[in-house]
């Protein structure tokens, strides 16, 4: 590696900030119609289910059972934080049990 660490750090920070700022900046040029707003509002749900689906795909039965339990627990106890933490405990137990 021919560059010193501060230079590398600067380049990495610039790339990371570019990603954080680019979508925001571009959207300032786009008039936000009701339909675009509906699309933007739907993206979090789609990203959340995408993240969960990928975890099951790359994991397996233990991850699938734990995330299904998280969804059930969220509806049941009404606290998403508690449900998520219980899901993490459950997957640790399932892995320990060899699932």
């Amino acid at each position, binding site marked *: 590696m021919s560059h010193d660490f501060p230079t590398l750090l600067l*380049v*990495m920070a610039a790339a990371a900030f570019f990603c954080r700022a680019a*979508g925001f900046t571009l959207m300032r040029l786009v008039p936000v119609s009701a339909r675009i707003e509906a699309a933007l509002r739907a*993206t979090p*749900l*789609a990203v959340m*289910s995408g993240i969960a689906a990928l975890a099951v795909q790359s994991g397996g039965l233990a991850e699938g059972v734990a995330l299904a339990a998280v969804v059930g627990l*969220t509806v049941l106890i009404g606290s998403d934080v508690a449900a*998520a933490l219980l899901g993490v405990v459950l997957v640790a137990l399932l*892995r320990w049990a060899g699932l």
Partner: protein
Amino acid sequence: MAAAPFTLAGFRRGLRDGLPLGLSIFAYGLGFGLVAAQAGFGIARAVTTSAAIYSGSAQLAAVNLLQSGQATLWALFATILVVNARYILFGAALQPWLWQAGPLRAYGSLLLLGDANWMQTMRAIRAGEEDRAYLAGTGTPMLAGWLSGTALGAGTVGLLPRPEVMGLDLMLAAFAAAMAAAMVRARADLVPIAAGAGAALAVAPSLGPGAAIIGAGLAGGAVAALMHRNAA
């Protein structure tokens, strides 16, 4: 246009809602610290990398590249751009709400944007959150957790059990599943959920998880846009 509220009260609300996210990010930070230490980064370099990039997946990719000895500055820039491209979508989704805070506050808040607090903030917006300081509030415990986790992981490499043993690698997915379950209000909300999961599973095997998340967001947005036209 009148500036939107950006108050200490909103920041505190975000801080409170961000605390559990900070705990989960702490666990991810541990993981990155371990990897960075194994790649020959000391604590200081690991922590400054975490502060500069503030994204686990991009940092792991960058450390991999630096370790290979093939890292040109352009390759490094491009790698982070590709891995973090989902943030372009996240920023776009926040824009109609966040820009009303004014450019300085908006771009400052975007420095604290992560996966988990983006989901949390989008959820709060949907529930009627008006205070634009909420985003920075949720991001603050996350950044603290990320940096302290990195330091501890890099400093205690070899002493701690691996995060997977404790199930901590599933933390983001667990929060994602829980937040989605809590956000569903109507049957129509299940459509972007199905589209997102389907797109992620279809894209991941060939293009990797970063592209899969972008695919999920775009697919969910597209079906919502189509449904909106039908409803109008």
